[in-house]
């Protein structure tokens, strides 16, 4: 019951954030964004034709009316049709979001798991050559740009100049085997890019926890290493880990897929966002921006609830 009340309270307190983000992005879109009017008109349009198109696009309405309309769209999840393709935005999202999740999910999970694993080695053997080698590689990995990694991996693993194991681009997935072959190179690229950051982050979290007094106490009472790791180190590191993992979910979905999907020609939500930015497709952009803001509020809520689950000192107040 407590948790339900808390959830409701948190959701309500997330409303200003959603309003703020949507208001600012909507302002930018309306006053500085692309204007579709002239794209839809022929050469030398009459004033009346212009007015008609503007009415059709809803551009003639006062800002506030348009903004409130936008909020209504967010609540009902009815965003109208895409300016460029005419497809219903809601069904467009329903089609592309699962692709993006399937695309970025494995890389995200693997990147974090491998990061924890490497960090554990580094932390356990800290200040020995094992640690130094891992951390030096992490820095090297971090300093290579995502684009270079993508292109290099495409050449190495997918092109006929390299191993040619996987398709270079596209997403024609009809079976699990297809899925694996299309997701392989993007996943490797994501893991490669995220691994350095993740390893450094997890190592610092783990080392900090490993040197705490309660870890020493546990060792003084003969707690074996596996239990020590789970009960003292991992459980106490959960707060920073949860924060990082949960908050990187919206980022990975949106920005991670933005680059990957455009470079691999994969029709996910990143690709349609990218296209919408290029073509000034306001209905799509409005939907993506609004939903991202909501996603952040939900991430915030999720972290708060998880905090409570892992740390008894935190209460849901």
């Amino acid at each position, binding site marked *: 019951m407590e948790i339900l009340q808390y959830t409701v309270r948190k959701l309500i307190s997330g409303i200003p954030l959603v309003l703020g983000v949507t208001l600012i992005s909507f302002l930018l879109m309306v006053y500085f964004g692309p204007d579709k009017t002239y794209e839809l008109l022929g050469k030398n349009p009459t004033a009346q034709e212009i007015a008609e198109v503007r009415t059709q696009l809803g551009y003639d309405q006062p800002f506030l009316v348009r903004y409130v309309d936008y909020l209504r769209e967010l609540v009902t999840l009815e965003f109208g049709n895409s300016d460029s393709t005419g497809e219903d935005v809601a069904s467009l999202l329903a089609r592309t979001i699962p692709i993006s999740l399937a695309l970025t999910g494995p890389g995200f999970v693997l990147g974090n798991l491998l990061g924890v694993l490497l960090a554990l080695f580094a932390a356990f053997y800290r200040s020995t050559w094992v640690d130094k080698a891992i951390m030096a590689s992490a820095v090297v990995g971090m300093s290579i740009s995502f684009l270079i990694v993508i292109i290099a991996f495409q050449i190495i693993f997918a092109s006929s100049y390299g191993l040619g194991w996987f398709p270079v681009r596209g997403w024609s997935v009809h079976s699990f085997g297809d899925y694996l072959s299309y997701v392989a190179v993007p996943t490797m690229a994501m893991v490669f890019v995220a691994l350095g950051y993740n390893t450094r982050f997890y190592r610092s979290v783990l080392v900090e926890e490993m040197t705490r007094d309660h870890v*020493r106490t546990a060792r*003084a009472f003969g*707690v074996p290493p596996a239990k020590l790791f789970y009960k003292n180190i991992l459980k106490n590191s959960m707060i920073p880990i949860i924060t990082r993992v949960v908050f990187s979910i919206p980022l990975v979905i949106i920005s991670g897929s933005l680059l990957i999907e455009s470079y691999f020609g994969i029709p996910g939500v990143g690709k349609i966002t990218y296209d919408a930015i290029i073509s000034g497709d306001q209905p799509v952009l409005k939907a993506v921006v609004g939903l991202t803001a909501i996603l952040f509020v939900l991430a915030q809520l999720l972290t708060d609830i998880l905090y409570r689950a892992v740390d008894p000192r935190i209460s849901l107040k």
Partner: protein
Amino acid sequence: MQADTQPLLSVRDLVIEFTTENGVVRAADGISFDVHENETLGIVGESGCGKTVTGLSILGLIPSPPGRVAGGSIRFMGRELVGLPDSEMRNIRGRDISMIFQEPMTALNPVFTVGNQMTDVLRRHRGLTRRQARDAAIEMLAKVGIPVPAKRIDEYPHQLSGGMRQRVMIAMALSCDPKLLIADEPTTALDVTTQAQVLEQIAGLQSEFKMAVVLITHDLGIVAETCRRAIVMYCGRIVENAAIERLFEAPRHPYAKGLLESIPRLRRERLDELPIIPGRVPNLLHLPPGCRFAARCPRADALCREQSPALVPAGPHGDFIACHHPHPGQQAEPAA
């Protein structure tokens, strides 16, 4: 170091080193002492003189990196602990030798209940079932004076005061009936009334459990009240090891004498800090070639500045001293 009985714990020439950015420091250098069954041995000395690292080394808990036991021997019940594999050391920790730490506020795991942490120890070392371990834990909590232990056991450390947490630590430390308890300033972080209660509890439990205690403290009053014998440490070394009456009546090492004489009437009172002796403790990174106390010692001469005094037996009663020119001490020594 009496010849008649085999000591429970025997530390010889212990060297503990830490690798720091500025070089290797010897936090303990040539530490030797014995602890006999059922005896309370005090270790006193200024902050940073190596008391905690000495205590930690007995349990093999020197944080590594940056520290390590660089030499010497620690024998417990005839068994060498230096170099013992961790898996064997784990069977000793918390069962044969327990330790209570200086910082009660942070010494317990914040995300598990007191009961969870206590029953873990009991189940591991005494092979109890969950139910039995819980009963035993409640019983131990009652023994250390925690009111309503059946309720407290399900609380998290942050719900308890510092004094209560330290009692929980004591209960945990004694729950497996150890032969040796290392208590590292168990009361320093507590207020005065709680200090007295906790100390009384340790003393009471010591006689009940028949264990030996190594009591590390700043407080000479506590040493006078609870210890049979005490070691005075200075800058990583033992300077004097003497039975309590002799140490307080007639300290022989100039440092020990300085400490004790500056509080002629306070012997039976509590002091949070050691008395101040003029001068500064040398940096462990830049130690003088001779006696480490020479710069502050009224008896220092050329020999002291050149040659470091070794810890040697003094008198027939197992006392030790490291000084070129010790004070004469008592003439007619009473049989200890």
